[in-house]
């Protein structure tokens, strides 16, 4: 008791030397809040970078050392910033964080320094030996194609990759670096003529340089092997496959050179030209625009035997506008590859069912410029056969790569399907960022009418002058000329003219019960629902259940060792719980509106986090898909390194702020540090009023029709503009602080009827306490102890309420940015004995738990908080706290009587509900 007494004295002591003026308080507040915001931003950035690292590891997505380094830097710098900002906010209270950070960052750096050197590898790698793990040596396009080639059921053109190490060797052997650098340095990028001149000069320099004899010998040795595999003098397609093409959202699409039908004698020269195409004027300008350094981009080259194509095209395994589509989009066109490159061919578009037997659902024929059909002229039966086979293969690739694919293919004159490229559909395309909430998912008709979205040029025609659909290389077999495909195309008005099969397929698919907005962790799982709203529910959580929560708080982390999946009404991919879900490989789906009300305990559901859908019952098909997911980066040095690194970055050990181990010295990972800093920053922020003493004379008295004695201090923009700053009083009309106004609504909602009538025993208890605790003796208390203070800004409010023997503090910051918003409530003290005081706290807990507060009760003190919620939600909670801070005072004196407890419970709940209605 002496603790609180001293604390109250310290806050309200009239000693003037320790008081702050309003101006000083404003500076302290602004500085503290600036650090708080910066800390939250750093927290988000660190968690996002962690999430990206975990996601690539979990999904088997392709990644390189550059990715690892950039994300590691992002995590470390942002965690460092958090430590520094917390130090500022807390005035150095958490100094143990510095050694903890140093220790972990040293561990991370040590691992990164072990990183394999990527440019010291071989110069030539045959396609059959290439896997995705070779991406840093051969570039992404060739790495993907090598992965396709390794699948038993797929055929790719035979060939080999000339690696980026070879390109480095070529350039350095000719000492080209300094001269290229000189030409680029002289460049005025605003002068296009100058850019063209420099580009031509550099390309000429490279193209005219001599290929080192050792490299030339290796290239031709590889070509000789290709001849053995195919035929003598086989012509080849030589294609760029540059590094860094997918960094920072830059596709580099169409920037570099590809040469088809290259004859043996021109291979060396063509190779040099492709390496030189790194410096085409468009590539130079593109890099500058995107902020890339020229030296960051290195060129790998693919050398593939030309396909004697009869038919070619492109296939999307999902409709770009509808990630849940039950069809694939298949594009076919007549003409040779060269005609396609020239942009002179036409294409037919098919929607093909993803379900076996992969029927053609719709067909739109290609049109000539004069409006006449120029579509496919071959038997429908053959088209259907190809479409079914292509779709089957495409779905195998989608399954293998674990994401929707954009596939280029040819059918040779023997009727064999050859895959030229398979790459993930871009994130925006693959995951349907189209706002379906407004527009709905695209229907088949819409897909057909729209045609394929504009896509980036393919590996086959990267010189970029052809956008989709001209970038398909294919030709038509002679045997197809006699019969015309049945025309299922849409009419000009877009009306459906297709087969009925399409509708059957769509309708036969079960509709999801709920949809989510965010995949926190990928995967598919099935199990019984278990709703968790409180720590009591937590204790009863059964193993193997689907954890359903409103808000994915870090406190639920221990349940993820038992849960099979996680569903949240809110949440983001960068949240703590999302990170832990990925750590445990548990599917996590967030942004599932009303899941707590729409789901009930024990109900069996299938969670498809990959597609952000939730189905009633068990969906074997989805579970099978989930089970087949494989990690294609397994065994690569970069994956091993990332896995090792993440051990020091993502595990979360500090989950419970109430635990004695929730200390800076127990931070084992960078994630622990972010969690600790975030928690303590909020605590420090809402101790602002407690830690910063102020000069009572700085306050303005709130006047008007107000009960009790209220005083207001403006920290920044809390008063209406034009308010008289010299006035000693203020009225509510002049207050523009949103949180203060909300609290005030609660205070003013019902008149306070004064303290309850106290029995003789109750009064005896108070007198006894007063005798024992001098600090609480009303006679000893200063005039300050009956004043209630608001410290405000437009979005911030700290209210200290002191009346009689109890103390309450409400603090809130309200922002459109959810991560910044919080409301906290501290309640302590009272005049009665401990039993009665605890009784009152228990009653308050009971009431607040019904309104989504997170509660911490220690003896007769209570801390309640809500965070990261919309402003209106927080306003409602502040009204409740305003109401309780007034009406719960002094009821501790009657808390030994069950009837009184019931009376107040009913009264509070009834009045709160009336107030909020």
């Amino acid at each position: 008791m002496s603790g609180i007494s001293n604390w109250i004295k310290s806050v309200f002591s009239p000693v003037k030397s320790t008081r702050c003026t309003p101006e000083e308080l404003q500076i302290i507040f602004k500085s503290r809040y600036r650090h708080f915001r910066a800390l939250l931003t750093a927290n988000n950035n660190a968690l996002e970078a962690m999430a990206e690292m975990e996601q690539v590891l979990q999904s088997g997505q392709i990644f390189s050392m550059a990715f690892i380094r950039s994300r590691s830097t992002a995590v470390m710098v942002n965690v460092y910033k958090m430590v520094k900002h917390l130090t500022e906010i807390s005035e150095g209270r958490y100094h143990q964080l510095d050694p903890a950070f140093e220790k972990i960052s040293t561990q991370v750096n040590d691992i990164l320094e072990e990183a394999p050197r990527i440019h010291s590898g071989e110069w030539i790698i045959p396609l059959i030996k290439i896997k995705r793990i070779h991406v840093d040596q051969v570039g992404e396009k060739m790495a993907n194609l090598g992965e396709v080639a390794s699948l038993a059921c797929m055929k790719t053109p035979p060939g080999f990759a000339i690696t980026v190490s070879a390109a480095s060797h070529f350039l350095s052997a000719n000492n080209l670096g300094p001269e290229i650098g000189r030409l680029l340095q002289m460049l005025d990028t605003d002068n296009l003529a100058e850019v063209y001149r420099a580009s031509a000069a550099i390309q000429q320099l490279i193209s005219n340089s001599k290929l080192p004899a050792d490299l030339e010998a290796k290239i031709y040795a590889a070509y000789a092997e290709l001849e053995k595999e195919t035929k003598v003098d086989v012509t080849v397609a030589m294609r760029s496959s540059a590094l860094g093409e997918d960094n920072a959202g830059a596709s580099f699409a169409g920037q570099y050179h590809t040469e088809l039908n290259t004859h043996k004698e021109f291979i060396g020269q063509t190779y040099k030209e492709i390496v030189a195409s790194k410096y085409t004027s468009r590539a130079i300008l593109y890099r500058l625009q995107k902020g890339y350094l020229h030296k960051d981009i290195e060129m790998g080259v693919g050398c593939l035997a030309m396909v004697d194509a009869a038919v070619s095209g492109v296939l999307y395994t999902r409709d770009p506008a509808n990630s849940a589509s039950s069809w694939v989009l298949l594009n076919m066109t007549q003409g040779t590859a060269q005609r396609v490159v020239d942009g002179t061919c036409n294409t037919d578009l098919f929607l093909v069912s993803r379900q076996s037997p992969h029927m053609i659902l719709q067909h739109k024929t290609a049109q000539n410029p004069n409006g006449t059909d120029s579509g496919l002229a071959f038997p429908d039966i053959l088209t259907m056969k190809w479409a079914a086979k292509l779709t089957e293969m495409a779905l195998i690739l989608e399954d293998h790569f674990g994401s929707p694919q954009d596939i280029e293919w040819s059918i040779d004159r023997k009727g064999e399907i050859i895959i030229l490229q398979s790459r993930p559909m871009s994130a925006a395309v693959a995951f349907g960022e189209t706002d379906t909430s407004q527009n709905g998912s695209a229907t088949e008709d819409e897909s057909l009418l729209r045609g394929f979205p504009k896509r980036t040029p393919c590996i086959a025609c990267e010189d970029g002058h052809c956008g989709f659909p001209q970038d398909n290389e294919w030709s038509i077999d002679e045997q197809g000329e006699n019969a015309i495909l049945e025309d299922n195309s849409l009419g000009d008005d877009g009306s459906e003219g297709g087969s009925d099969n399409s509708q059957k397929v769509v309708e036969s698919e079960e509709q999801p019960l709920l949809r989510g907005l965010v995949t926190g962790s990928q995967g598919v799982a099935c199990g019984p629902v278990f709703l968790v709203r409180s720590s009591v529910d937590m204790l009863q959580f059964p193993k193997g259940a689907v954890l359903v929560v409103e808000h994915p708080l870090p406190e639920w982390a221990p349940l993820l060792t038992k849960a099979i999946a996680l569903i949240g009404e809110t949440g983001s991919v960068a949240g703590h719980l999302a990170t832990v879900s990925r750590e445990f490989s548990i599917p996590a789906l967030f942004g599932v509106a009303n899941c707590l009300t729409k789901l009930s305990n024990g109900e069996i559901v299938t969670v498809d986090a990959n597609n952000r859908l939730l189905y009633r019952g068990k969906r074997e098909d989805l579970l099978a898909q989930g089970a087949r997911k494989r990690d294609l980066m397994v065994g690569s040095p970069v994956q091993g390194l990332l896995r090792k690194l993440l051990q020091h970055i993502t595990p979360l050990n500090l989950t419970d702020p109430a635990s004695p181990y929730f200390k800076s010295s127990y931070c084992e990972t960078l994630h622990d540090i972010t969690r600790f800093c975030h928690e303590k920053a909020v605590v420090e922020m809402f101790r602002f009023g407690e830690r910063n003493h102020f000069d009572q004379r700085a306050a303005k008295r709130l006047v008007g029709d107000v009960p009790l004695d209220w005083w207001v201090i403006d920290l920044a923009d809390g008063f209406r503009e034009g308010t008289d700053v010299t006035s000693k009083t203020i009225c509510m009309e002049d207050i523009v602080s949103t949180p203060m106004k909300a609290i005030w609504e609660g205070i003013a909602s019902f008149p306070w009827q004064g303290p309850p009538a106290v029995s003789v025993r109750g009064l005896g208890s108070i007198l006894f306490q007063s005798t024992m605790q001098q600090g609480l003796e009303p006679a000893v208390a200063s005039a300050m102890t009956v004043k209630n203070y608001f410290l405000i800004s437009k979005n911030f409010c700290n209210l200290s309420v002191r009346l009689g023997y109890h103390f309450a503090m409400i603090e809130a910051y309200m922002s459109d940015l959810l991560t910044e918003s919080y409301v906290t409530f501290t309640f302590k003290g009272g005049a009665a004995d401990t039993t009665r005081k605890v009784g009152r706290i228990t009653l308050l807990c009971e009431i607040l738990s019904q309104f989504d507060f997170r509660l911490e009760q220690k003896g007769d003190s209570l801390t309640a908080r809500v965070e990261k919620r919309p402003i209106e939600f927080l306003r409602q909670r502040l009204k409740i706290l305003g109401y309780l801070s007034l009406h719960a005072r002094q009821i501790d004196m009657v808390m030994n009587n069950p009837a009184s407890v019931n009376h107040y419970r009913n009264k509070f709940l009834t009045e709160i509900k009336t107030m909020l209605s």
Partner: protein
Amino acid sequence: MKIEQKILIVDDESDFRIPLAKIFSRRGLAVDTADSCSQALAKMAAGPFDVIVMDVSMPELNGIHCLMLIKQEWPDSEIIILTGHASVDSGIEGMKGGAFDYCLKPIDTNELLEKIELACEKVRITRDEKI
């Protein structure tokens, strides 16, 4: 965005420095450039800049050293360092040396602009507080 403060871009690579300066000028910033640490120090002495965007890997004197010299002499100026993929350490070193923030190369110009804006705000606040 209205930024009145003066910005200095320090990078030895002209193919990065010059276009970046042009992009920022077009967005209304008062920008100058320096191709080395010594030139940056000379330009600072001639008329201090509020925000310096500086590559950490430069010949002669590296960016971290330069950063420390600038912070020592002009503590109210804010520095944003640019680091490459290969130098994870330099991000932390720069922050420890007093950098306001860092940007990873290849840079996202919008991200860098946002950071410049924040740095300018801090410069302004620091000045206001001193007044």
